[in-house]
């Protein structure tokens, strides 16, 4: 099953990139002109995201560097330790929604120190793999189309992060614990 999924994953992009223009050509679309026409928008979209990403990443970076994040982790750690959850994975719950590279670096470090197949390594890998970086997704998607008022999207994203974090810990402790 896993082999099949990996195979599909490896083939998906090459097949798509071959079949889409082929079908378009069959439908008498001037494929190259059409490609270039659409591709032009990509640059502007990426540039439009810059102010949003710079603003958000500066705030996150400052929040981490000042020690505020460490303080917050220190507050939560004893709470979850009471349930037998290894304290090492807790910072991930806070890092994951904020920064993708930051939490990946932290996960990699946990895997390096405790081993990939340890309970900590398993929990960390699962947390890292099971959700996306909420603040990044929000910033990029809304920034690209100029939405200022995101309504309840942030609340929903953060809520699902919390649920995903708890689910990852529970599932791993049941399976590997």
């Amino acid at each position: 099953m896993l082999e099949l999924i990996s195979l599909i994953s490896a083939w998906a992009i090459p097949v798509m990139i071959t079949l889409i223009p082929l079908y378009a050509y069959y439908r008498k679309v001037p494929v190259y002109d059409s490609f270039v026409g659409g591709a032009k928008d990509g640059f502007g979209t990426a540039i439009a995201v810059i102010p949003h990403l710079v603003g958000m990443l500066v705030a996150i970076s400052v929040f981490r560097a000042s020690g505020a994040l460490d303080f917050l982790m220190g507050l939560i750690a004893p709470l979850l330790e009471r349930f037998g959850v290894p304290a090492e994975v807790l910072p991930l719950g806070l890092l994951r929604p904020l920064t993708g590279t930051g939490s990946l670096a932290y996960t990699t470090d946990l895997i390096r120190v405790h081993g990939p197949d340890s309970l900590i390594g398993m929990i960390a890998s699962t947390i890292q793999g099971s959700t996306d970086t909420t603040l990044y997704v929000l910033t990029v998607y809304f920034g690209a189309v100029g939405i200022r008022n995101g309504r309840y999207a942030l609340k929903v994203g953060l809520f699902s992060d919390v649920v995903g974090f708890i689910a990852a810990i529970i599932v791993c402790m049941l399976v590997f614990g």
Partner: protein
Amino acid sequence: MINGIWLGMILIGFVFAAVNGRMDEFTAAVFDGAKNGVTVSFGLISVLVFWMGMMRVAEDAGLMKLIAKALGPVVSFLFPDVPKGHPAIGYILSNMSANLLGLGNAATPMGIKAMQELQTLNPDKETATPAMCTLLALNTASITLIPATLIAVRLNYGSAEPAGIVGTTLAATAVATLAAIAADRFYRRLTLLRRPPKPPAVRTGSAGGGGPAVPHSSVKG
């Protein structure tokens, strides 16, 4: 909310930096973060340019409408206010499939393209529509079959079973996605019950004859 969070992080950061004597780190972090933002955006240029070109080819060939028609019913219950067969549905489906297969750098351009399509249906260009919020909910939870990056990292550190996390990840990501959909539904209902936010330019003393008023008795639950 985003304004408060942004200001809050900077303010709290300042206070902690002051207490911990980390002012130099604070300043370094500012420019580090800014540099990071630009680097990430520039990294997006190549994937966005390529995929937006490819997506245009697909759209010109009528593929997006075709996908939307064929698989639309699968997602239409999540996006009730997007017209059936609208290209946005095609992009949303491509975005979801790319996420599912762990094709992160294809998922983002498709998601952005879906956002742009949803934006064409948006009466107020600065405020997110419920459909946009649902799309974001799906992407922040990002249901994944193959956590490719993590498998690679685990392999790198000599794991006996690098793919051993596929099952647990699938379980956790499914729960997170269900939670996101449920929360999204909840807030969607809530905002439907409340009156829509007032546009900023409305004067209180203006003549009557605004839109059809919502009966207040039915608003409070």
